[in-house]
């Protein structure tokens, strides 16, 4: 197929599209409806999760023929677009008889569905008949993808690569939109579920324990902090005395032989004796027998070698001694008796009592 053939085919396709658009006034929105000039691709939700089969079955192609241009306008009561959704069911109305059917080849198999009047509105410029010179010239190594889906005319990708990239973006967007926590409790057989953070509420903030400890432990520094110095971090010198671990192996003490217990038996004084008196007639305890002096070892000093060392001592050089003078016989102590208390006579006592 040459480029000319492709141009012709595209022209035919364009004419057919234009012809099909002739039925658009029947679905034209009410004058009050806002005009949407932007591309419908940006306004429509992602398509990969839309089952176009339900909206427009692909086979047979004849049944999916577009409605004729002269199709009568649909009454609002017969078809109501679902708000917020670009996937609209096809109206049950059939195209009018005036529109001649047209046979389509395999190359013309396109999925053409009606679009809601408020979903897409094509500008008046787009409604004009395109010129051949305005059509893009396709390069041999590129493939222009023109897709008419149930959403509407979707001609956004210039090349196949762009279309694939766009589709990938749409897939990502749709996946992000559908990542929600399932409302239904999964069965236990499904295994552990990923607990996603709540989207509406702010998660509780956990305190930075390390930072708090550092603030408490670190002494107030007069110099700039590490943050003030940028990336320069100087480690402070170790504070406090150096800890030295003296590893000494403490040997167990020598086994202390426990001294045999002594039974100190003391005969209690008999009740007949007064307190603090001992019964001398009671025999001593058996543990303390009377010592036998004959068996005691006799300490005998060992014989020592005696050697005489001659020392010359002058006879006239003796120590000066001072002796206390003799006092002689005298009465050292003198004991005197205190004068007896003057005893009062009975008369004196009587007089004292009478003076009371």
């Amino acid at each position: 197929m040459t480029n000319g053939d492709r141009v012709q085919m595209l022209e035919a396709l364009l004419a057919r599209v234009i012809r099909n658009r002739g039925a658009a006034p029947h679905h034209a929105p009410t004058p009050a409806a806002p005009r949407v000039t932007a591309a419908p691709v940006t306004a429509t939700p992602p398509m990969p999760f839309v089952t176009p089969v339900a909206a427009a079955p692909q086979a047979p192609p004849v049944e999916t023929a577009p409605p004729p241009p002269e199709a009568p306008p649909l009454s609002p009561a017969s078809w109501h677009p679902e708000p917020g959704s670009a996937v609209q069911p096809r109206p049950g109305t059939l195209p009018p008889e005036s529109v001649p059917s047209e046979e389509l080849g395999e190359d013309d198999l396109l999925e053409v569905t009606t679009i809601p009047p408020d979903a897409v509105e094509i500008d008046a410029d787009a409604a004009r008949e395109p010129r051949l010179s305005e059509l893009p010239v396709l390069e041999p190594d590129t493939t222009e993808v023109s897709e008419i889906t149930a959403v509407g005319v979707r001609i956004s990708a210039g090349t196949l690569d762009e279309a694939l990239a766009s589709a990938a973006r749409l897939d990502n967007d749709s996946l992000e939109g559908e990542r929600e926590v399932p409302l239904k409790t999964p069965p236990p057989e499904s295994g552990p579920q990923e607990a996603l953070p709540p989207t509406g509420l702010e998660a509780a903030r956990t305190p930075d324990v390390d930072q708090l400890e550092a603030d408490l432990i670190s002494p107030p520094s007069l110099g700039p902090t590490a943050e003030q110095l940028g990336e320069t971090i100087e480690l402070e010198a170790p504070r406090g005395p150096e800890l030295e671990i003296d590893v000494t192996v403490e040997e167990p003490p020598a086994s202390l032989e426990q001294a045999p217990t002594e039974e100190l038996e003391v005969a209690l004084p008999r009740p007949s004796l007064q307190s603090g008196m001992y019964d001398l007639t009671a025999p001593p305890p058996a543990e303390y027998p009377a010592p036998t002096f004959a068996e005691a070892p006799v300490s005998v000093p060992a014989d020592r070698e005696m050697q005489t060392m001659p020392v010359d001592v002058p006879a006239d050089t003796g120590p000066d001694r001072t002796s206390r003078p003799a006092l002689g016989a005298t009465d050292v102590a003198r004991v005197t008796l205190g004068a007896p208390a003057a005893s009062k006579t009975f008369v004196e006592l009587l007089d004292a009592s009478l003076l009371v």
Partner: protein
Amino acid sequence: MGTPRFDPTHSLEFNLDRGSVKLSGAIERVLLPADAVAALVRGADTETRRDFARRLGTEAGRRVAERLDASAGPEAVVEHLGGEVALMGMGSLGFERWGRVLVMTVQGSPLRGEGDDLLAGLIEGALQRGFGRTASVVPLQRDDSLVRLLVVSSDAAERARGWLGSGVSWGDVLSRLNGSGSAS
């Protein structure tokens, strides 16, 4: 001069032929039952009891004064005066000093509580006759066998009677008497 000991030998003489009891150096005695004397004392008025008691004390004081002089100590007085009281069968005399206050005690009086006033008058007469001092003796305290007799002036005796009548204990009476004496 030493104080002679009280010698009661042959102090009481019974003449059975004559049917009399005579105390040495004194007039004849009459041996009477104690309960009878107590009943007689109980029936007599206050002045009669006082006179009767003083007469008994005056004779005892005279006998003590014959043997003791003014320099006699309290022990000698108690010994001799107590001997005379004992010969009369009125009990055992004692002597206490509570501060400056003299207290005579009589142990084992046969008249018991009914003879306390009689003993008080006896001591008053003895002190008057034997030592020439006018003293007022007030029964201060008594138990089963002992009676304490307060020997004070007449004014102090009136105060002591008033305190005792108002319920003041005999110890407090002695304290008050000593306190009042030191204050004065």
